[in-house]
């Protein structure tokens, strides 16, 4: 039924995004990019693609960071345009998508301020997709006082809700008769990465329940599936990264932290929860997730986190493996009709494309040999479909 009425409100936005499908770089184009010898050459190549207009004003020796910013700006512009064309639920939905970038921006700002990086540089590095006016005011953060940051600035931003939940949870975990000092200590020791992961987890759960309650059946079917996988991947990543982590020295601490960071949705939760929470080596993790889908295969090729020091550029990390698998799923979701999944997939795939371009730009600027395995570490959107 909802396929009949999908076009009434969202047909135009979907049509635009389908049109943007043509802007993805093809495998042949990636091949040509790999053949570029220098950054100016890469830039002039990109000027022949859909990225033409966003790069024209820059000088040929464009630094990678600016290049990334330009590419992201283009994506953000497209997204904004679609947002402007959307109505009702779709607008809400698209806004939810943006929240993920807002979280990234906020955590990046906090991290930058902690490391005493100049505010101008921080502002220029903001992801344009997650821009909101209050972001500039994060500057008022003093020391590690996240609760006052929340109270003063973030409270009426879109991500304020997540931040509040995060603060509540972290304070709750302290022992009963806590003092102000304890709270301050807690914040001081907290790593921005930890904030990011827990905020994202909350966002994911929230987005999941939004999709579950407000979207139409076809969109639900596609999106919930995607989000479940994303949640699972997040869980696996959290466990994987916490294996052999020196900051988490006691077993109890590891488990509580894991419990806090792992999303409570997905295929792994709650059936395998007990197992994965206690997984202390890669093998036990593999064992814990073997019940679901092809996770075991995914983890088969993952390098052992205990030998983290030995990793280098060539290593195909867990992230790479997951990106690859995700990319396949998103490409499938993109080609599906009549669902909101296409917007999500577009964003994800374009992000992957930008990551690819930046990676290649890095490789080119480092002047690595053409037979270096790093050249193969790009994941081309839609390349999975042909096979």
């Amino acid at each position, binding site marked *: 039924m909802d396929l009949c009425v999908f076009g009434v409100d969202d047909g135009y936005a979907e049509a635009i995004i389908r049109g943007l499908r043509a802007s993805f770089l093809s495998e042949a184009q990636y091949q040509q990019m790999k053949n570029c010898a220098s950054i100016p050459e890469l830039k002039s190549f990109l000027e022949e693609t859909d990225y033409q207009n966003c790069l024209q004003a820059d000088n040929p020796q464009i630094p990678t960071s600016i290049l990334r910013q330009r590419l992201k700006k283009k994506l953000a512009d497209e997204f904004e345009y679609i947002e402007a064309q959307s109505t009702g639920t779709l607008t809400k939905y698209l806004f939810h998508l943006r929240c993920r970038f807002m979280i990234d921006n906020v955590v990046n700002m906090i991290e930058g301020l902690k490391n005493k990086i100049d505010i101008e540089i921080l502002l220029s590095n903001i992801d344009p997709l997650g821009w909101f006016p209050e972001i500039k*005011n994060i500057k008022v953060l003093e020391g590690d006082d996240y609760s006052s940051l929340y109270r003063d600035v973030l409270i009426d931003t879109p991500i304020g809700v997540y931040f509040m939940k995060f603060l509540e949870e972290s304070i709750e975990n302290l022992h009963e008769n806590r003092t102000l000092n304890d709270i301050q200590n807690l914040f001081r020791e907290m790593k921005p990465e930890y904030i990011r992961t827990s905020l994202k987890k909350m966002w994911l759960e929230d987005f999941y329940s939004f999709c579950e309650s407000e979207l139409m059946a076809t969109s639900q079917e596609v999106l919930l599936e995607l989000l479940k996988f994303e949640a699972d991947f997040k869980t696996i990543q959290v466990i994987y990264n916490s294996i052999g982590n020196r900051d988490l020295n006691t077993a109890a601490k590891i488990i509580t932290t894991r419990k806090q960071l792992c999303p409570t949705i997905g295929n792994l939760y709650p059936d395998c929860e007990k197992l994965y929470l206690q997984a202390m080596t890669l093998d036990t993790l593999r064992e814990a997730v073997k019940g679901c889908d092809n996770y075991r295969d995914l983890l088969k090729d993952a390098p052992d986190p205990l030998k983290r020091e030995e990793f280098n550029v060539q290593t195909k990390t867990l992230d790479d493996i997951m990106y690859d698998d995700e990319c396949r799923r998103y490409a499938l979701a993109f080609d599906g009709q009549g669902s909101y999944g296409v917007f999500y997939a577009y964003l994800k795939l374009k992000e992957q494309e930008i990551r690819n371009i930046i990676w290649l730009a890095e490789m080119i600027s480092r002047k690595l040999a053409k037979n270096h395995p790093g050249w193969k570490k790009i994941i081309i959107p839609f390349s999975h479909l042909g096979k």
Partner: protein
Amino acid sequence: MNFFRSKTMSFQKLIIPRESAWDIMNILAEQDCIHFVDFDPSVPMINRLFSNHIKRCDDLLIKLSFIEHEIKKYQKTITYSKDVNLIVQNFKLLIRDRSKASQTYLDNVEIDIEKKHLQLIEQVNNLEYLYEKRNKLIEHKYVMIKGQAILGKSFFQTANYVAEGFMNIQGKQLDYIKLLQGSIKFNYLVSVINKEDKIRFKRIIFRITKGNVWMNIMDIDNYEIIDTTNNNLRLLKSVFVVVYPGGGGSNLITNKLHKICESFQITKYKFPENNIKFQEILKQVETDLVETKNLLQMTQSQMDAYLDDFLSVSHNSKCSEIEELKLFLIREKYLYTQLNYFQLQGSALYGSMWLPEGMEIKIEKALKEVQNKNEGLPAGYLQSSLPQGSSPPTYFETNEITWGFQEIVNTYGIPRYKEINPGLLTVMTFPFLFGVMFADIGHGLCLLLLGLYLCIYNQDIKNANSVLKHTLIVRHMLLMMGFWAFYNGWIYNDFMSVPLNLFGSQNEINQYKWVLKDESCVYSFGIDPVWMCVTNELTFINSYKMKLAVIIGVIHMSFGIILKGLNAIYFKNWLDFFFEFIPQLIFFICSFGWMDFLIIYKWFINWTGRTDEAPSVITLMINMILAPGQQVIPPLWGDGISEASTQTAMLLIALICIPIILIPKPLFLYHRVKKQEKEIQKNQTQKDLYRELNQESNLQESIKISKQEIHHEDFGDIFVHQVIETIEFLLGSISNTASYLRLWALSLAHGQLAEVFFQMCLNGGISSGGFVGAIRLVFGYSVFSLITFGVLMMMDVMECFLHALRLHWVEFQSKFFKADGYAFQKCSYLKVMKENVDLNE
């Protein structure tokens, strides 16, 4: 009959020494008759020889567009070029008069534009800076004025100023303040904030200070503050005053407030604490403001004059300088793009091209001309050679009349090289088929008049910039369509649903019955209007139009099949001629040609008085297949036996044709493929030997061989292909004939619509007559005319157009048209410049 086929092409190699590349290419592009072939399309453009020249041109074009943008910002009008010929001539003169090598003109232009661009940027920056300064001064002024208004005049009175200041605005709190006064000192923060940030700012201040401040905000009602970075948009700003406790020095609140101000990017303004200083600063600001404004005006007028330089119109080219520069750059870029199709080997460029036959002399002459003009330049060298790779491009000369029809054909597909071009035939058949569907004297006349108007006043309309300008391009098409609609209207005798009795009907009423005046007389032209008045009007007209439609369709399609035969003869493809064209034509004539014969034969017989004896053509056709050989009852001629035997013969001939189409062709093709394969194998062994002898293996040769190998097909594929073709033709001949019935259907729809409109709007008024009738007619007519215009003259024209298009593309062209050619892309300055000039409109 050469003009039905595309021009003969010859493949030429051109060798240009690198030094004279520009001059030679320049003159060749002026010839307007060459199609350059890319030496290797897989090489990306950026890796080509002249890519940096193209890049330079692009950069300059961007700079020019920046200048153009500035010009538009100052609301100046650029005179765009109307006639690119003038510009081409102008460049020719310009380049001839230069003493240096011609290609260096780009360098001159580059230096010139870059200099001007830099100057302009400097000016713009200067202007922006001044605007910024003015904005700041205005803000400062308003900080002073509004700040004073908020804080009250008594603020400057030294004693008790804090309390008084509050009292002026919020008298209620006076008691409370007075209690505090003396023990706490208050600080002030006065500045300007964007109006849209107002609420957010207020909220954040409240939160951060936990409500321990007092603040007030007032909008600036001045619209002079302009955002120069964003298209000179007006910025709305507000002045705010924050009063907070906490004496001098730094404390928590002060720090926080300053941080917030920084994060909102607020500039701090000085706000004096006593009246004398206040007046002083205000005065200072005012004078500064006046000064800045004067400076701003001066810079602006300077800029104005500067930009005017770009707008000067030279008498040679009749357009602004900036337009001239732009077109020059486009021209230059085009030249280098064409040169990029050449391959550099040693010190010469090697390229290949397609030339229409007979143009070689022209090109040779042009090459010589270059050498004569610039002594010392090495000449280019033209050499005819065997074509490599793809087949030649298809090139037709079109004129204003044929252009539109050729476009109709090209939209479907470009004709194969040397194939009969349906474009020219379409010139006649398309308007005619349209006319059959749109047949109406009145509506056709309207269209005809529009066409005539457009044709006669062509030049005037073009110059007057009228809305009709865009229809000029199809004016001949409209004229012809109108004419045929008009003509067919006469045949159907239909004037907006009313038949005209111009020649006097041949029937008269005799005792309440229509009888012919005279046995042998007929109505002079078209259908007798008396048909309008009889009960079986619609049945008669429909049957007549249907039969006419089928007759036209069969003739049109037979013509298509004959064209296929002509193509087969031209390409000496005897296989197609004998085993496709001939059996197809016979099949078609024996089946649907026979039907046409029956229809026409039936028309020739006078059935008056014995209408029940007339056989139905449909029944005849059905029985021909279902009951072959049986006596035909009622017969069309004779006793029905001779008719039956003729029909059986027709049927047999048609059936025999089917296996002839189906079987021999694939057998022959397969045989041919086998033979070719053997030859290739033989060649290959020879080549292998040759390669062994010659250590340098020729890469290109091996590529060619592999291409031939790919061509390999097995018998199954060929046969299945032929089966599909046969079925398509057989079913197609039935369904396509039926498809021509749209000629009747649309004409019926048109007629019925016209009748409904006439009945609803006009008929009532006419028949009631008198004063009431006149009033009704006034209203009725306005509705009638609008609805006729909207539905019949716009929608129906479009609909008939589309259906005529379909009849050509599907029913007619499928009989013979391969449409797998590619168009001849002539290298021409005029073309590329014209495209650009058209963009300006």
